[in-house]
C-alpha cells in the first residue's frame, strides 16, 4: 500500500507540473461548455423560443395582408418591421415571406368542387431556416387560411362568424408533459455532461504521455528492476486521475451553473440525486482511465499516444452524441452511437440530470462503463504480457 501511495504521489506531482496537460483537462471542456451552450441555444429551444421574422405580401391589398399578418404572428413568429418588396425576396431577411395572389380573399368564400383546386399561396423561405420551423409556419398558414375560409363560408350562408372562433389554438388546449419534467435537454443540459465526458476521456493524453516518457527514459525499466509489479504501476495511475475526473465533474457543473448564465445562457438544473451523479461520474472515470492505460501500453512514441488517444476520443465523441446530439441524428447513426462509451456515459448523465431518474435508470450505462473499464485494463495487462520486453533496452 505504501508503494501504491508513493506511485499516486509521483503521478500527482508530475501532473501538477504539466500546465498544458492540466489546461487541456480543465479549460478545454469548460470552454466547450460555454461556447457550445451559447452557440446551440436556439437549436435546443425549438420554435416558440426562437425569434423568426416573416412578412406577408398580398395583392388583394394592405388590409388583407395586415389581417393575415396579425393572425400568423405568435409562438416565436414575428412580423418583419420592414416587409420586402417583391423584387428583393432573395435577401435573407425576413426568413419567411408569404406571397398571396390576387383574388385569394374572394376565393376563400368559394366552395371547392370535387375537381376544384385550392387557392395557391407561395412561401419564400431562407434556406438556412431549420426545417422544423418551416414546417411549423406552413401548418400555421394552413390553419389561418382554414379559419378564414370557414368564417367566410359561414358568412355567405348568413351565419355571423368571426375567424377567431375557428382558430386552431382555440379548438383545445394541449399540454405536453415530459419524462423527468424538464423536457428535451436544453442547450446547457446537453452540453455540460457532453463536454464533461469529452474532457474526462482526455485523461488519455497525460496518462499515455507520461507512460511513454517513463518507458523511453528507462524509469519504467528501473521500476521493473525494483520488482514493482506491472499491475501496481497501472493502478498507480488510477487514483490520481480518478480524483482529476471528479474535480473535472465538479468544475464543469459549476461552469454550467455560473459561467454559462454569466455569458447569457441558461442555468444548468442540478440533479436531485447527487449519489447517482457521483456513481455515473465514477463509472465514466474508470472507463476513461482504462482507455488511457491501454493507449499508454500500446503506444511506443508520444506521437502514437497523441494520435491514438486524440483521434479515438474525437471519433467516440462524434459518434456518441457529444458533438451532435443523438436526437438530431438519423436512425442509423443513432444505432451506431450505441457502440460509443461516451454515449453510455451521456445516457447515464441524462438519466440523472435530465430525467431525475433512479438507480435502475443508471444501472445499464454504469454496468457497460464498468465492464469496458475491466476489459481495457485486462487488455493493457495482456498487451504488456505479450510484449514481455517492457524496457528500452531493445
Amino acid at each position, binding site marked *: 500500500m*505504501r*508503494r501504491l*501511495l*508513493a*506511485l499516486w*504521489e*509521483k503521478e500527482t*506531482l*508530475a501532473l501538477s*507540473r*504539466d500546465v498544458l496537460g492540466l489546461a487541456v483537462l480543465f479549460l478545454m471542456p469548460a470552454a466547450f461548455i460555454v461556447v457550445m451552450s451559447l452557440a446551440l441555444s436556439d437549436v435546443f429551444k425549438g420554435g416558440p423560443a426562437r425569434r423568426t421574422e416573416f412578412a406577408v405580401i398580398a395583392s388583394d391589398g394592405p388590409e388583407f395582408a395586415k389581417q393575415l399578418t396579425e393572425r400568423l404572428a405568435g409562438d416565436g413568429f414575428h412580423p418583419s418591421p420592414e416587409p420586402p418588396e417583391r423584387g428583393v425576396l432573395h435577401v435573407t431577411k425576413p426568413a419567411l415571406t408569404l406571397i398571396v395572389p390576387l383574388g385569394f380573399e374572394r376565393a376563400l368564400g368559394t366552395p371547392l368542387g370535387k375537381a376544384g383546386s385550392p387557392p395557391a399561396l407561395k412561401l419564400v423561405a431562407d434556406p438556412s431556416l431549420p426545417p422544423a420551423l418551416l414546417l411549423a409556419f406552413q401548418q400555421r398558414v394552413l390553419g389561418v387560411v382554414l379559419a378564414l375560409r370557414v368564417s367566410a363560408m359561414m358568412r355567405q350562408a348568413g351565419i355571423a362568424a368571426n375567424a377567431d372562433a375557428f382558430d386552431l389554438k382555440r379548438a383545445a388546449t394541449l399540454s405536453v408533459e415530459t419524462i423527468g419534467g424538464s423536457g428535451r435537454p436544453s442547450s446547457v443540459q446537453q452540453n455540460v455532461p457532453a463536454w464533461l465526458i469529452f474532457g474526462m476521456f482526455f485523461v488519455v493524453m497525460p496518462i499515455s504521455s507520461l507512460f511513454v516518457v*517513463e518507458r*523511453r*527514459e*528507462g*524509469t519504467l*525499466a*528501473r*521500476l*521493473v*528492476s*525494483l*520488482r*514493482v509489479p506491472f499491475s501496481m504501476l497501472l493502478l498507480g495511475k488510477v487514483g490520481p486521475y480518478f480524483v482529476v475526473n471528479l474535480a473535472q465533474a465538479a468544475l464543469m457543473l459549476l461552469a454550467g451553473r455560473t459561467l454559462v448564465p454569466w455569458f447569457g445562457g441558461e442555468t444548468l438544473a442540478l440533479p436531485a440525486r447527487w449519489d447517482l451523479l457521483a456513481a455515473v461520474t465514477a463509472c465514466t472515470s474508470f472507463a476513461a482511465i482504462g482507455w488511457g492505460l491501454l493507449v499508454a501500453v500500446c503506444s511506443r512514441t508520444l506521437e502514437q499516444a497523441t494520435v491514438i488517444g486524440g483521434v479515438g476520443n474525437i471519433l467516440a465523441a462524434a459518434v456518441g452524441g457529444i458533438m451532435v446530439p443523438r436526437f438530431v441524428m438519423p436512425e442509423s447513426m443513432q444505432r451506431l452511437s450505441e457502440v460509443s462509451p461516451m454515449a453510455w456515459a451521456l445516457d447515464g448523465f441524462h438519466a440523472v440530470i435530465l430525467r431525475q431518474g433512479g438507480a435502475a435508470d443508471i444501472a445499464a450505462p454504469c454496468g457497460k462503463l464498468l465492464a469496458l473499464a475491466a476489459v481495457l485494463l485486462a487488455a493493457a495487462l495482456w498487451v504488456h504480457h505479450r*510484449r*514481455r*520486453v*517492457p*524496457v*528500452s*533496452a*531493445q
Partner: protein
Amino acid sequence: MGTLNLEALSFRYPGRGETVLDKVTLAIPAGGIFGLLGPNGAGKTTLISILAGQLRGATGRISAGDEPLEALRRRRPHSLGLVPQEYAFYPMLTCAENLRFFGAMQGLAGARLRERAAAAAAFARVESVLGRRAGRLSGGLKRRLNLAIGLLGEPEILLLDEPTVGVDPQSRAFLLESIRSLAGAGRTIVYTSHYMEEVEAICDRVAIIDSGRVLVSGALSEVIPDDSDLEELFMQLTHRSLRD
C-alpha cells in the same frame, strides 16, 4: 554474498530470429568491479537487463553464491541495484522527490527513507540541488542523481550501464572514484562502458563479448598481453568494422 555466476545464459527477443546472448558463462567475484565490454549491439545491455530482472525468458542459470539470483531477490528484493544508461528518473520531479519516490518503491519509509535519501545524495554529491527539478540539472548532476537512486537500497550487487556517458572530466573522475569506493565496501559491481581507459582504471576483471558470445574473460592482468593495452585487445577481438 558469493560470486555471481552466469552459466550458459542464452536469450533471444520474442518474435526475432537472432540469438542476442549465446551460452554466456561468466564468474563475477564479490568485492570487485567487473568490466563488461563489447561494441554496440554485442548484448551488454541485454545481459544487464536480464540480471536486473527486466527481461524474462533467458535460458541457463544465474546464481549468487549457492543460491539462484531469482531466489535471492525474492528473499531480499533490493539486494540488486541498477543504474541504467538512460536518466531513469522523473525530470519534472525535484531531486529530493525522485529520491523519496524511488526509496519508497524499494520499501523504505519514514526515518529510514530520509536517512537513506540523505546518505545517497551525500555520496553522489547532489545535496545542494535536492530542491531543483531533475530535468533542469547539468549532465554531470543527472548522472550523479542516477547513481544516487541506484544506491538507495544499499544493494549488494550493483549494475552500472555506461554511467559516465556525456559528463565532463571532473564529473567522470568523481563518478569513477565513487564507484571504486563502492567496490571497497564488498559489493559486486558490473560495469559496462565504451571507455577503455575507464575500465582499465577501475576494473579488476573484464569480459569482452560480441554477437552474444564471450570472447575473453578474466583478470585484467591475465587478458591483456604485456606489450598491449585493453583498447588494442578489444579492437583485435571485435575487429574494426562499424556495428551501427
